[in-house]
């Protein structure tokens, strides 16, 4: 499913590291890495809400639908 996760860009915009986000939302660094690199098959609403609250953004700022061949700056 071509859904790109723009977590890396959002972290950069908020000047936050993945480790800091992991500690703030209470999700393991391994799981956040899976999400960041686009290897995740699904994301729970609770996870999405926690990330959005910490990064002060909306789900649409993190996720976007792209074409099959397209590659974003983060994982797809």
């Amino acid at each position, binding site marked *: 499913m071509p859904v790109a996760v723009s977590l890396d860009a959002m972290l950069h915009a908020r000047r936050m590291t993945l480790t800091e986000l992991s500690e703030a939302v209470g999700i393991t660094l391994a799981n*956040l890495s899976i999400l960041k690199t686009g*290897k995740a*098959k699904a994301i729970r609403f609770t996870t999405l809400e926690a990330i959005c609250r910490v990064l002060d953004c909306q789900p649409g700022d993190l996720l976007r639908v792209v074409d099959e061949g397209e590659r974003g700056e983060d994982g797809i």
Partner: protein
Amino acid sequence: MSRDRVLWGATGLLRLMLILNIVCAAVFALALLLSWPMQDMLSARLTHKYGGMLDLDQAVLAIRMMLFVGIAGGVALHPIFSNLLRIVATVEAGDPFVDDNATRLARIGWALLALQCLDLAFGGVVRWISLLKLDVTSWTPSLGGWIAVVMIFVLARVFRIGARMRDDLAMTV
């Protein structure tokens, strides 16, 4: 981490039953094979016990049929023990909800179905032997066995769907 006592006991019991089953099947096979070279001795023993009115050919054939059903029962039982041992091993490894275990349960279901069919054949042989006026054990159809067959097939399906659901949840953040 200490090994789960229930699993430890189940593994030991299953291994013991697996070996006993092989031994029993081998003994039945040996007895069946020996029933030809030792047919005269067998006939003499039967005549001594039941008298001259006994149809010896029919009686010996019935005994051979009983032994054959015993061997077939051993063959049908083997996959039950071996597959159960593999399932217990996956439980010990901490990952039992896998598609392979659904397949193993289905195999156990087919083996149980074969055993139930053999039980019916056994009942037929028992009836035949009783008609020959030979001493034989009583037999009643096993309703519980048929329910177990259905239950195992349903459980196999539950396992398969559960394994797929778990796969769906994998890589969910």
